[in-house]
C-alpha cells in the first residue's frame, strides 16, 4: 500500500469525507486522514477548510500523528490565525516535556507558525529553551530566534534575544555555536550596521574550535562568518589560515569554497616573501581542480569563482590549464565558462596547447560555443604576442571552412588583431575580402567595412567594395551605417580623386535620408570637417589609433577585490557586488580585502598590479564604449541603439555647395575646375551663414561671446561685470546662456543673452530661481517673444525682486537657476556680486554709525587688503557711491585718509566699513564690521571689483 492513493481522490465530496474521517474515534483512521490531508497539501490543493478538525488531532501521544499535525499547522496557521491559537497550549506544554527532542520539536514548530498572536506566547518558552541544559534544544532555539526575527524583529530586540544569541557563540557545544552564527548572520543581513557579529580574537578562537567539530553546514556558516573578520596583523592572519586549510579537504564543496574565500582574503595580509604564503598558494590549487570533477551545477558555480580567483591570483592555477579543457558532453554553461578561464590562463608557455584545443572546439556542434571559441583564438593572439602569427593562420584555416558563423566571428576578431598589431598581418586582407558576400551579421559586416576603410590604400577595389555595401544603406543596422560612413570618408581622404561621388552619396544618405541622430550628427561632423579644413579632417579621421590593451573583459580591480570577499556567494556567480542585486539585504556593506600589514609593505599591495597585469591606464576592453575619440575614429562595436525622434531638419543646402570650397586644398591644382563644376562658392562660411537654417557657423558662437561684453551699459555708475557664459550650449542641447547682474535705478536686473546653437527653433522660454540667501526671484516672466531661430541671439533683461523664499546658500551669493524651453529644462548656477543688494538709502547717520561700530563686537570685524589701487580717496569715495556704498565720514591722519562707510542690504542688514588709503601706497586696508559676519568676504569682493573697474 503506497501513498500514491492519496493523489487519486479528487472527488468533490473529498473534504467532507476527510472531515468525517478526522473526527473518527479510531486512531488509525484519524492518522490515515491526516496523511491524506498532508498529501493534498503537498500537491498544492487547498485543504485549509479542515483546520479545526486537524488541530483537534494534535492532543495525542502518538508522535507521528503529532508531527503530521505540526506539518499541517505550519502550512495553514497563517490563513487561520484565530484557530491557530487553539494549538498554543499544546505547544507550551510540549516545551516543558522531559524529553529534549519533544521540547526542541515544539519550539521549532512554534517558530514556524507565522502568526503574531502565537509569537507572543512563544517568547517565554523560547527564552527557556535558549538556556536549556540540552545542546540539541539550545541549537534549535538559536534558529528559532532567526525565525522570530523574520516575523517580528522589534519583539526579538525588545526581549533581548539578540544578546542571548550572541552569548551562544561562546557555547561549549560546536553545533550550538554554528547555529548561533547562522542565525546571527541571517539577522545581520537585515541590519547591515548593527554590528551583531562583533568579532574579536576570543570569539574567533571559539569559532575556529567549533569549526573542527560541527557539521558540514555549520562549517559553512562559521567560515562565512570568519571571512568578515579582519585580523589585526599578518601573524593572526596566518594562524587563522593554518586552522582553516584542513577544510579544503572536506567532501562538501560548499565548505571547500567557503574555506577558499577565507584563505583568499586573509592571504592578502601575508607578506609575499613568507614561506607560508607559497605553501598556501600550492594548497589552494588541488581543491579547486577537484571541484571541477563534481556534478555540472557545482562545476558551474566553481568555475564562476575560479574566474575571479585567476584574475586575482593567476599563479594558483597557472599549471592547471588542462583541467579546463572542454568535454563534448559538458553542459553549455560549463563549456562557456571553461573557455573563458582558458583564455585567462593562456600564456606563452601553454599557448600551443590552448590553440590546438580552441581549433578543435571551432568544429563543435554548438553554435554559441563555436563562436566563443573563434573569438577566444583572437583573444589569444592579442594576449600572447608570440602566438599572434599562429592564431592568425588558425583563423585563416577556419575561414577556409566557409562555415558562415565561423567566418563572421573570425573577421570580427581579425579586426581586433589588426588594431593590436598594425602593419603586420594585412596580407590576409585579400582572403577576407573573398568572404564579403557571406557576411550577414551586423558585427561582422561592420568589422569588414572597418578593415576595408582602414586599409583602403592597399585594396585596389576598395571603392567598389564599399559602394556595394552602400546600395542597401537604409537596410543596414546603425552599427554598419556608422562604420560605412566613416570608412568611405577614410577612403575619400586617401583616394580623393576617384571617390568624390561616393563620399557625397554617403554624406547625403547619412544627413538627409536618415532619421538616426547619431548617424546624422556624425555625417554633419564629417561634412563640415571636409568642407572647412580637409587637412584637419585628415588629421582627425586618419589619426593614429591607440593600441588596444591585451587583456579583455577584466573585472575592474576594486570590484574584483570586493568579489573576492564574496567568493561562493551569488555575487560571485553574477560577478556583481551584492548591493547591485540582492533584494532583502538593505544596504549591504561593501567588503574590502584587508591591507597587508607588517614587513613594511604599503597598503597598495604590489601584487594587485602584477597579478592582474593592469598598467597605469585602465584596461581597455576591446569594445571601447564611451571613448569619444575611439568612437569618432570609427570603433562602432557597440553603437547606442536608442532612436530619438528627430526634429525635422529643413536642410536646404545642396550637398555640392557644402563640399565645394573645401576640396581645393585637398586636391591641389586639378580641383579648381572641379570645385567650380560642383557649383560651390569658395566662400563657404559666408554661404552657410546666410542660409536660413544651417549648422551654427563655426566662428559665430565665439564672436557672440566677444560682442556681448561691449553691449552692457554702465547705468548710474553701478558696476556690473561683463556677461559670462553661465550655461554652455553643450550642456543645454544647444541653448547657450550668458548673463550678468546689474542694478539700474534701484531695481535689480539680470541681463541675459540667449543664443540658439542648435539646429531647431527654440520657443516657450521660462525661468525660475531656487531659494537663495537673499530671496532673489524673477519679478516677471522671461520675455522672449519671438521664437529663437538657430544661431540667433536674443538679449533679455529680467527685473528681480528680493521677496522670494530665503535659504542660505553656500557660497552666500550662489544662485541656482532653471531655464525651460520647448526642448527641455536646464539647470545652472551663477554667483552675483553682493553689491547688487546695496540699496540706495544706505547712508547712515554719523552718530548712529559710531554707536553701531562700537556695538558690534570686535570679533565680527574682518580686515582685507585691496592691492594695486591707484585712486585718490575722493575718487574712490565717488566710485563707491555709484554702487550705493556711502561715505559717512572722512578723517585724515597725516598721509592716511580714513573713509567710514555704510552699506545697507536689501534684507535690512547694515554693513559698516573703514577704508584706509595711504597716499602713495597702492594698497588699501579695508575693515568690515557687520552683525552677519559671513557677508564681509563678499563685501570685500565687491569693493575690489568696484574700485578696479
Amino acid at each position, binding site marked *: 500500500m503506497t501513498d500514491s492513493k492519496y493523489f487519486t481522490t479528487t472527488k468533490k465530496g473529498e473534504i467532507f469525507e476527510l472531515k468525517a474521517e478526522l473526527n473518527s474515534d479510531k486512531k488509525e483512521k484519524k492518522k490515515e486522514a491526516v496523511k491524506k490531508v498532508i498529501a493534498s497539501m503537498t500537491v498544492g490543493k487547498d485543504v485549509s477548510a479542515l483546520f479545526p478538525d486537524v488541530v483537534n488531532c494534535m492532543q495525542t501521544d502518538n508522535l507521528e500523528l503529532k508531527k503530521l499535525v505540526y506539518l499541517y499547522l505550519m502550512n495553514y496557521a497563517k490563513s487561520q490565525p484565530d484557530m491557530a491559537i487553539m494549538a498554543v497550549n499544546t505547544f507550551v506544554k510540549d516545551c516543558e516535556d522531559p524529553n529534549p527532542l519533544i521540547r526542541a520539536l515544539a519550539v521549532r514548530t512554534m517558530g514556524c507558525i507565522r502568526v503574531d498572536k502565537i509569537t507572543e506566547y512563544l517568547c517565554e518558552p523560547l527564552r527557556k529553551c535558549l538556556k536549556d541544559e540540552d545542546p540539541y534544544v539550545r541549537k534549535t532555539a538559536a534558529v528559532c530566534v532567526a*525565525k522570530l526575527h523574520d516575523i517580528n524583529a522589534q519583539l526579538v530586540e525588545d526581549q533581548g534575544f539578540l544578546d542571548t544569541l550572541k552569548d551562544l557563540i561562546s557555547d561549549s557545544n560546536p553545533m550550538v555555536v554554528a547555529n548561533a552564527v547562522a542565525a546571527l548572520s541571517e539577522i545581520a543581513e537585515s541590519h547591515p550596521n548593527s554590528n551583531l557579529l562583533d568579532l574579536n580574537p576570543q570569539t574567533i578562537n571559539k569559532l575556529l574550535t567549533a569549526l573542527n567539530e560541527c557539521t558540514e553546514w555549520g562549517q559553512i556558516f562559521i567560515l562565512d562568518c570568519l571571512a568578515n573578520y579582519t585580523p589585526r596583523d599578518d601573524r593572526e592572519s596566518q594562524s587563522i589560515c593554518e586552522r582553516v586549510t584542513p577544510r579544503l579537504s*572536506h567532501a562538501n564543496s560548499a565548505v571547500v569554497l567557503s574555506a577558499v574565500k577565507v584563505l583568499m582574503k586573509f592571504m592578502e595580509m601575508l607578506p609575499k616573501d613568507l614561506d607560508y604564503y607559497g605553501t598556501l598558494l600550492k594548497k589552494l590549487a588541488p581543491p579547486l581542480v577537484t571541484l571541477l570533477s563534481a*556534478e555540472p551545477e557545482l562545476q558551474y558555480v566553481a568555475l564562476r569563482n575560479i574566474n575571479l580567483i585567476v584574475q586575482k591570483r593567476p599563479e594558483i592555477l597557472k599549471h592547471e590549464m588542462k583541467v579546463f579543457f572542454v568535454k563534448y558532453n559538458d553542459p553549455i*554553461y560549463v563549456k562557456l565558462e571553461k573557455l573563458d578561464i582558458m583564455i585567462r590562463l593562456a600564456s606563452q608557455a601553454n599557448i600551443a596547447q590552448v590553440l590546438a584545443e580552441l581549433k578543435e572546439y571551432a568544429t563543435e556542434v554548438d553554435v554559441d560555443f563555436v563562436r566563443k571559441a573563434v573569438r577566444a583564438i583572437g583573444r589569444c593572439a592579442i594576449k600572447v604576442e608570440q602566438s599572434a602569427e599562429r592564431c592568425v593562420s588558425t583563423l585563416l584555416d577556419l575561414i577556409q571552412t566557409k562555415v558562415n558563423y565561423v567566418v563572421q566571428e573570425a573577421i570580427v576578431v581579425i579586426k581586433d588583431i589588426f588594431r593590436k598589431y598594425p602593419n603586420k598581418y594585412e596580407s590576409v586582407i585579400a582572403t577576407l575580402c573573398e568572404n564579403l558576400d557571406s557576411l550577414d551579421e551586423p558585427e561582422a559586416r561592420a568589422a569588414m567595412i572597418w578593415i576595408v576603410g582602414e586599409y583602403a590604400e592597399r585594396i585596389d577595389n576598395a571603392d567598389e567594395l564599399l559602394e556595394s555595401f552602400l546600395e542597401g544603406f537604409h537596410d543596414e543596422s546603425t552599427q554598419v551605417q556608422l562604420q560605412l560612413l566613416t570608412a568611405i570618408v577614410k577612403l575619400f581622404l586617401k583616394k580623393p580623386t576617384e571617390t568624390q561621388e561616393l563620399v557625397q552619396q554617403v554624406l547625403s544618405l547619412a544627413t538627409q535620408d536618415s532619421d538616426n541622430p547619431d548617424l546624422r550628427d556624425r555625417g554633419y561632423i564629417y561634412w563640415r570637417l571636409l568642407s572647412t579644413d580637409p587637412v584637419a579632417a585628415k588629421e582627425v579621421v586618419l589619426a593614429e589609433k591607440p593600441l588596444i590593451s591585451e587583456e579583455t573583459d577584466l573585472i575592474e580591480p576594486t570590484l574584483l577585490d570586493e568579489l573576492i570577499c564574496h567568493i561562493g556567494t551569488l555575487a560571485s556567480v553574477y560577478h556583481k557586488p551584492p548591493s547591485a542585486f540582492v533584494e532583502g539585504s538593505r544596504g549591504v556593506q561593501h567588503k574590502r580585502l584587508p591591507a597587508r600589514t607588517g614587513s613594511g609593505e604599503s597598503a597598495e599591495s604590489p601584487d594587485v598590479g602584477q597579478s592582474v597585469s593592469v598598467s597605469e591606464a585602465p584596461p581597455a576592453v576591446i569594445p571601447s564604449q564611451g571613448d569619444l575619440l575611439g568612437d569618432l575614429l570609427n570603433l562602432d562595436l557597440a553603437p547606442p541603439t536608442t532612436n530619438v525622434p528627430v526634429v525635422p531638419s529643413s536642410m536646404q543646402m545642396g550637398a555640392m555647395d557644402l563640399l565645394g570650397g573645401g576640396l581645393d586644398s585637398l586636391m591641389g591644382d586639378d580641383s579648381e575646375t572641379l570645385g567650380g563644376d560642383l557649383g560651390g562658392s569658395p566662400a563657404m562660411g559666408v554661404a552657410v551663414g546666410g542660409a536660413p537654417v544651417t549648422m551654427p557657423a563655426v566662428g559665430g558662437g565665439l564672436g557672440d561671446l566677444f560682442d556681448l561684453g561691449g553691449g552692457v551699459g554702465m547705468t548710474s555708475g553701478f558696476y556690473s561685470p561683463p556677461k559670462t557664459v553661465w550655461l554652455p550650449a553643450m550642456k543645454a542641447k544647444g541653448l547657450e546662456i550668458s548673463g550678468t547682474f546689474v542694478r539700474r535705478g534701484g531695481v535689480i536686473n539680470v541681463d541675459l543673452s540667449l543664443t540658439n546653437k542648435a539646429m531647431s527653433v527654440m520657443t516657450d522660454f521660462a525661468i525660475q530661481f531656487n531659494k537663495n540667501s537673499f530671496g532673489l526671484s524673477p519679478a516677471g516672466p522671461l520675455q522672449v517673444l519671438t521664437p529663437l531661430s538657430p544661431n540667433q541671439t536674443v538679449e533679455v533683461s529680467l527685473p528681480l525682486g528680493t521677496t522670494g523664499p530665503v535659504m542660505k546658500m553656500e557660497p552666500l551669493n550662489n544662485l541656482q537657476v532653471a531655464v525651460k524651453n520647448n526642448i527641455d529644462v536646464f539647470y545652472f548656477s551663477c554667483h552675483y556680486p553682493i553689491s547688487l543688494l546695496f540699496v540706495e538709502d544706505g547712508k547712515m547717520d554719523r552718530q548712529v554709525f559710531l554707536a553701531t561700530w562700537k556695538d558690534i563686537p570686535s570679533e565680527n570685524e574682518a580686515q582685507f587688503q585691496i592691492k594695486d589701487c591707484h585712486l585718490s580717496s575722493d575718487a574712490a569715495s565717488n566710485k563707491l557711491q555709484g554702487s550705493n556704498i556711502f561715505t559717512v565720514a572722512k578723517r585724515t591722519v597725516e598721509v592716511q585718509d580714513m573713509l567710514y562707510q555704510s552699506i545697507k542690504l536689501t534684507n535690512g542688514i547694515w554693513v559698516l566699513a573703514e577704508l584706509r588709503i595711504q597716499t602713495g601706497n597702492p594698497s588699501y586696508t579695508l575693515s568690515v564690521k557687520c552683525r552677519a559676519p559671513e557677508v564681509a568676504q563678499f563685501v570685500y569682493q565687491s569693493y575690489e571689483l568696484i574700485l578696479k573697474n
Partner: protein
Amino acid sequence: MIHSLFLINYAGDIFLEKHWKSVISRSVCDYFFEAQEKAGEPDNVPPVIRTPHHYLINIFREKIFFVSVIQTEVPPLFVIEFLHRVAEMFQDYFGECSEAAIKDNVVIVYELLEEMLDNGFPLATESNILKELIKPPTILRSMVNTITGSSNLGETLPTGQLSSVPWRRVGVKYTNNEAYFDVVEEIDAILDKSGTTVFAEIQGVVDACVKLTGMPDLTLSFMNPRLLDDVSFHPCVRFKRWESEKVLSFIPPDGNFRLMSYHVNAQNLVAIPVYVKQNINFFDSGSSGRLDITVGPKQTMGKTVENVIVTIHMPKVVLSANLTATQGTYTYDPVTKILVWDIGKLTQQKLPNLKGSLSLQSGAPKPEENPSLNIDLKIQQLAISGLKVNRLDMYGEKYKPFKGVKYVTKAGKFQVRT
C-alpha cells in the same frame, strides 16, 4: 536560507512543493520554465536563475528538476549540495529517485524534508540519523503496519543527533562483524585523433560498507598514499592523522558511506587502458559516409578490460548506419542520433572492429563537426593509479571482523576526438 523546494518532472508538472518559511506561490516556477525552454536540453538549464524577487537554484537528477527558491544571499553551492543530499536521500530510502517513488511515499518525503531543514537551515542530513527518525519503507514493514496499525515513525528518538559522533548511533549490534572497502577509480580523459592523450586524470573514491558492533575505531593505511593529489574525507576521518602520517583514522558510520574521494592528475601516472583507431568520413557527394573503428587493449597491467561500450553522437544529417561488428552488437537510434556499440570483453588475440557505411540525408551539406567517441569500460581488481590498501586495524572493540578490499577501474568521461 533555503526558502522553498519544488519538484518538477520532465513534462513540466510541479508534483511536490515544500516551504520552510512562508509559502511562495508556485508561479515563481514560470521563470524556471522560461529558462528551461531557452536551454532546450534539460542538462543545459543554468543552475542559478535570477527572477525579480527570488533566485532559483536547481539541479536535474533522474529526470526530476529539484528547484529551490532563495530570497537572500545564500552560497549557491550550499544549496546545490543540499539538493544533492535530498536526491541521495530519496535514493537511499526508496531505492530509486523517481517521480513514482516520491509520489508513492509522499508523506515520508514530506517528513524527511521537514527533518532536513528547519527554517531553511540544515537540521539532520545524515542518513543514519534520519533513518532513526523516520523509518524507510520496506514491503514487510508496510504490511505489518497495515495489520498492526503501527507507523513508519521511529518511537525511539535519534540519539545520534546529540552525540559528538553524530554519524554513528550507539548500541549497534551485529552477529557477523564485517568491513568492506571498494576502491573505485574513474579515468577522465580526452584523446585526440592520433590517440595522443590531451588530458587525463583519475577520480577515485573509497566506498565503505562497515557493519561492526559497538564503537570501533579503524585505521586504514595505503601502500602509496603520496600518489593522491587532492583528497576529501567523510567528516569522520581525523584530518590531523592524515596530515602527519597519511593514514585514515576514523570511527565509521554504520552501513554504507563514502570514506574518501581523491584525485590524481599527474598526467604520466594515468595509464590509458585502451586504444581506439577510428576513421569516420563523410563524402561530399552521394550523401554517404564511412565508419571504421577498432578498439584494442593498451596499458591494462595484465588485467582484462570488460564492458567496453563505444558511444558516438552522430551529426544530425546521419539517417542510418549499415555496419558490421566483428564482436558485440551495435544499435543506431535515428532520433537521438546516437550510435552505441556494445563490445564486451577485450581480448588480445582478436581486436573488435566496427565497419560500414553511413547514409546521410540527401541534399544536405556534409556535416562540419566531427563526432566524438565516448568509451565505457571496466577493469576488475585494478586501481589504475596503482593505489593499494596496506592494512586495516581496529581498536576499541575486542572481536575480530571480516575485512575485504575490492578494486575496480571504470571509464569516467573518456572521450576520443575524431
